[in-house]
């Protein structure tokens, strides 16, 4: 017996509502109902971070989050970082500049965690930054460039001199 529910939420700045199957994960809802395909289906058990989105400003693996829990929440996906004319945000540009992308599958998830880190407005140490980024797997193993892209953007936003080349 199928069970459905209307879920109201704000996605990337827009108030929206859809009828969803209660068995759906938030990944299912974002991809199938809203066509937000930056939200990747990777491991689907909360280990790889490819489906990561911000919910009320905090990073969550949307694959292990029920779609019905999105009721009343504010959700941000990678698509929501772009400017009104498709301009890239600073963190997206930094991923390009640092060649922090190889196959690209882990990229949206990583960038959304980076968005949470950067929104905190704090200057994290390298060790803290590595720990904060540890919820993502990059099977191309491009971790060092990803780390540099986030670190660079963090320094830039805080108006600090970058202490590495």
């Amino acid at each position, binding site marked *: 017996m199928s*069970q459905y529910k209307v879920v109201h939420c704000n996605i990337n700045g827009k108030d929206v509502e859809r009828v969803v199957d209660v*068995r759906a*994960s938030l990944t299912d809802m974002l991809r199938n109902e809203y066509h937000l395909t930056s939200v990747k289906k990777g491991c689907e058990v*909360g*280990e790889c971070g490819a489906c990561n989105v911000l919910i009320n400003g905090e990073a969550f693996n949307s694959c292990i989050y029920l779609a*019905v*829990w999105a009721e009343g929440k504010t959700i941000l996906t990678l698509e929501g970082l772009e400017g009104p004319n498709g301009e890239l945000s600073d963190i997206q540009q930094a991923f390009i500049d640092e060649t922090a992308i190889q196959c690209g599958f882990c990229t949206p998830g990583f960038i959304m965690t980076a968005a949470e880190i950067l929104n905190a407005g704090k200057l994290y140490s390298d060790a803290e930054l590595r720990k*904060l980024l*540890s919820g993502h797997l990059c099977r191309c193993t491009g971790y060092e460039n990803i780390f540099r892209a986030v670190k660079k953007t963090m320094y830039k936003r805080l108006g600090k001199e970058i202490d590495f080349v």
Partner: protein
Amino acid sequence: MYDMKALYEAESVEHAIQLRLEHPEAQIIAGGSDVLVQMREGKRAGKELISIYMIDAMRGVSIDEEENIRIGSLTSFSHITHDPIIQKYINVLGEAVDQVGSPQIRNIGTIGGNTCNGVTSADSASTLHAWEAIVELTGKNGVRRLPIKDFYIKAGTVDIRVDEGEIQTAILIPKSSYENTFGHYIKYGMRNAMEIASLGCSVNVRLSEDKQTIDRCRIAYGVAGPVPMRCPSAEAVANGVMPTEAMIEEFSLAALKDINPRDSWRASKAFRQHIAVEMAKRALVESIHRAGGEIK
């Protein structure tokens, strides 16, 4: 899509109790980082779920009228770590749960789920045992409180009375337990993230006023047996004694009398016993330092 038979969404604690009584076969789901993964694996496939995740009244840390630290069962690990009350009185708990899984898991995982699944390796469990936490359960007959050591019955089984519609609503740390007390938790794992402890050790001490003697010492392990456990033999060595290197050595070896780790693919019994001694030592030394004491 998850393979679930039905989803019942609780809007309040009372509603959750009512749903539990109506659907005794259903599985409670809090953050879901265990339940949904098991459902995906097929272990819990086809089950009914009662979601308590939307009950915001079960979130947050406060000091109640009896001066207990009250942690709502749905408080996420990251919110525990960042909470000022936790940081002031029981910082070690915030540090312990900051070693669970990954940042995203710490945003969804709850302390209630971490204890209700009855797993010995839970990063919160050894610290909650070492600080003699009280588990609060709410059911159709009202509130029942019990010490955390009695809450754990056996591996994967905790004392929640489904026929009384009980759900865990809070974890309390009594004032007598947290006052002037400082602790340290060490997790031994093969890597730093997305890891389950091979062994976890949580120690805390309260020093005498002149900081010369250990007034009270408590130690608990996770993965040293089927459920998290205290070590009375080790505690007896440290209680009321001036901290010296010889005493710390004796304390760490005494822990072996109480623990009973097993061989598993994660680590052998012999290895667990070996690191248990070293972890006890290091965690005690750090606890004494944090309490402002010195080792003679």
